[in-house]
């Protein structure tokens, strides 16, 4: 027995060796690459305030590029929080920039998921070991809290064309005080995907899709009645992988802006307003009627791809990734209450360095990444969205839509995409909203009570931090 077990261990060791040989081992640098693309974007009204704020950061006017004769070669440390296909594309573009530049070389480092990156950056800022540039979620809450508004000046430079970027996307790059302190890169919106076969079996004409949440509710009931193609007990009509993200979109559609900033600069969370409670009540109805399963959001994508879910709300970045699946997938624009709106998500590029030479280098990198051709290339390869309006007018974008109709849905949604302001406790807010929705779904709290409690906890943390 003992000998056989050791033989088994030996065989496993050999298996490890075989897979190591079979896999073509790349150079370590392949994961370290990251690119950041930057673009200068700001509206004219933003520019003046932004310039003043930015000058406070570095003490120099960054709206004008440094003279070429003054430039020195520098190495930029760049952290990035995107992985998989997106990480590969990002590093590829960054490497291309590195290769094309005599003055700038890059040290790229994957920094983990959004939460990991936030922890890593927080720790690094305390010890002065932060990167020069970072591609991360909620970047404005970091640069903004540091009073680093250099980006507001940089985006005013010639050749950047800040007005070409969707206004809603700019809102995603602002600190709560209003200044722009990041640039968009790897932006996404929630998209309503559907299983074409299920909807067909349910007798729903998706050439005339539901536009309101009430219509959507009726369509879901039809799916429950006659759309269960696999005859599964766990079949449901609708689910969402990120409940908080959709909830915030629905709140905005119903007239609740989630967070308001008063004239004196105070942040006031308002996600327990009557409008938000209406949304939460609708949410509960989805569960009570069996349209959506309670608390099974983490399995929603698998359920959808195995053909046991009619509708799924998930990031637009899935458009380019669901290419080799066995179900027929379509997408429709997000249903709405009063007005069309979807909350933006994804990452932004921020500059942490205060070194003048490095800021110039960082801007070179960002400008490269946010050039229309590079940004569109990144978008179509990863499923993230183009940030410039001009990108959608290109032949490449038209060809992508021709090939995959879901792109047009995601692109159209950009015109009414929206972002709430960034502030330090926005991570806590997301957690509290997710917790409230979970309790509503499981019936342990009524919508009003759940949202009140969530808001209470958020305000409590904000007050504690303020003290």
């Amino acid at each position, binding site marked *: 027995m003992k000998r056989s*077990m050791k033989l088994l261990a030996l065989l496993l060791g050999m298996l*490890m060796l075989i897979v190591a040989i079979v896999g073509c081992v790349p150079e370590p*640098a392949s994961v370290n690459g990251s690119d950041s693309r930057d673009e200068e974007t700001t509206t004219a009204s933003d520019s003046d305030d932004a310039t003043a704020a930015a000058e406070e950061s570095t003490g120099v006017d960054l709206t004008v590029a440094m003279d070429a004769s003054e430039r020195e070669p520098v190495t930029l440390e760049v952290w990035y929080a995107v992985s*998989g296909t997106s990480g590969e594309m990002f590093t590829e573009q960054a490497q291309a920039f590195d290769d094309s530049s005599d003055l700038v070389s890059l040290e790229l480092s994957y920094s983990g998921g959004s939460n990991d990156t936030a922890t890593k950056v927080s720790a690094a800022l*305390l010890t002065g070991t932060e990167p020069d540039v970072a591609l991360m979620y909620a970047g404005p809450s970091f640069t903004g809290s540091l009073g680093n508004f250099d980006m507001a000046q940089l985006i005013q430079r010639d050749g950047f064309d800040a007005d070409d970027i969707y206004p809603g996307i700019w809102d995603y790059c602002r600190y709560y005080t209003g200044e722009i302190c990041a640039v968009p890169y790897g932006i996404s919106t929630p998209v309503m995907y559907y299983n074409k076969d299920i909807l067909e079996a349910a007798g729903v004409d998706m050439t005339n899709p539901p536009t309101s949440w009430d219509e959507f509710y009726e369509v879901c009931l039809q799916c429950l009645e006659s759309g269960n193609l696999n005859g599964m007990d766990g079949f449901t009509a609708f689910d969402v992988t990120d409940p908080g993200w959709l909830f915030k979109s629905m709140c905005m559609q119903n007239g609740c802006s989630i967070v308001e900033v008063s004239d004196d600069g105070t942040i006031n969370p308002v996600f327990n307003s009557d409008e938000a409670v209406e949304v939460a009540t609708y949410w509960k109805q989805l569960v009570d009627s069996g349209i959506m399963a309670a608390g099974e959001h983490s399995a929603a*994508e698998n359920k959808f791809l195995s053909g046991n879910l009619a509708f799924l709300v998930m990031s637009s970045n899935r458009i380019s990734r669901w290419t080799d699946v066995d179900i027929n997938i379509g997408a429709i624009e997000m249903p709405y209450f009063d007005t069309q709106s979807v909350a933006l998500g994804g990452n932004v590029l921020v500059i942490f360095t205060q070194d003048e030479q490095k800021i110039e280098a960082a801007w070179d990198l960002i400008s490269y990444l946010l050039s229309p051709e590079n940004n569109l290339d990144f978008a179509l390869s990863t499923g993230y969205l183009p940030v410039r309006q001009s990108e959608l007018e290109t032949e490449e974008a038209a060809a992508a839509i021709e090939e995959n109709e879901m792109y047009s849905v995601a692109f159209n949604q950009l015109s009414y995409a929206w972002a709430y302001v960034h502030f330090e406790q926005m991570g806590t807010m997301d957690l509290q909203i997710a917790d409230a929705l979970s309790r509503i779904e499981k019936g342990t709290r009524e919508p009003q009570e759940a949202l009140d409690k969530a808001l209470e906890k958020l305000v409590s943390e904000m007050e504690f931090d303020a003290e």
Partner: protein
Amino acid sequence: MQLGHKKLVRRNWVLFIILFIGALSMLFPFVWMTLSAFKTKADVYSYPPQWLPSVWTWQNFKDVFDMIPFVRYYANSIYTSIMQTALVMVISILAAYALTKLRFPGQRIYSAFMLSSMFVPAVVTMIPLYLVVSSMGLNDTYAGIILPQINTAFTTLLLSSFFAAVPNDLIDAARLDGCGHMRVLTKMVMPNSKGAISTATLFTFLGAWKSYTWPLIITTKTEYRTLPIGLKYLVTESSSEYQMMMAASLMAILPVLIVFIFAEKQLVRSITLTGMKS
């Protein structure tokens, strides 16, 4: 007598079937992971689910190697896990011996303090620890990964409970014969606690092998990064690429499996002994 034996056999068959079902349920995730590692994406999502791949493919393993520097991460994980395990075991064995076989002022307070440290979540100490390690200039070094993770409380307390079972009279006799503490420890206490030491070693190795957040925070260079960071790189954005994740997980789990196979006998014995002690 014969009837009683038959009854016993019948009862054992029932027990056997129950245990067999239990064992199958334990094995199922591992078998599924192994089979999925060789499936195509279409096979993974096919409905109804299919056990065996329609086409056995090594492509998933190739894809993993294409996306991350798997061998470098693998080597780093093995090195840091072995070093960390070795250091933890040396410190824990010495500490456990001191706590159970020596007498010194504040002994109980020290034990209580050590126990209480286990109740502090790692996330709370993450940033303070980073400040300390960073101030020592250990960012992007193996030492930076290994040293802060030598938290010996669990293994020390685990070993203490076993060392305490070694009779003091035996140790006193050895001391009278002229043995020093190190000799008593290595020649008497450790040989009588092999099971516990194996268990503690396995737990420590597992903890080090799957450690993710700390190595991620303290390193930025690929040459120092470990396997869990590489796996995360696959998981975050490739959440629908289960076949690739399964291939990576299968490769990641093999060293642990090998360690377990070699330590199995001691591990089972120590668990059995733990049950008898109570």
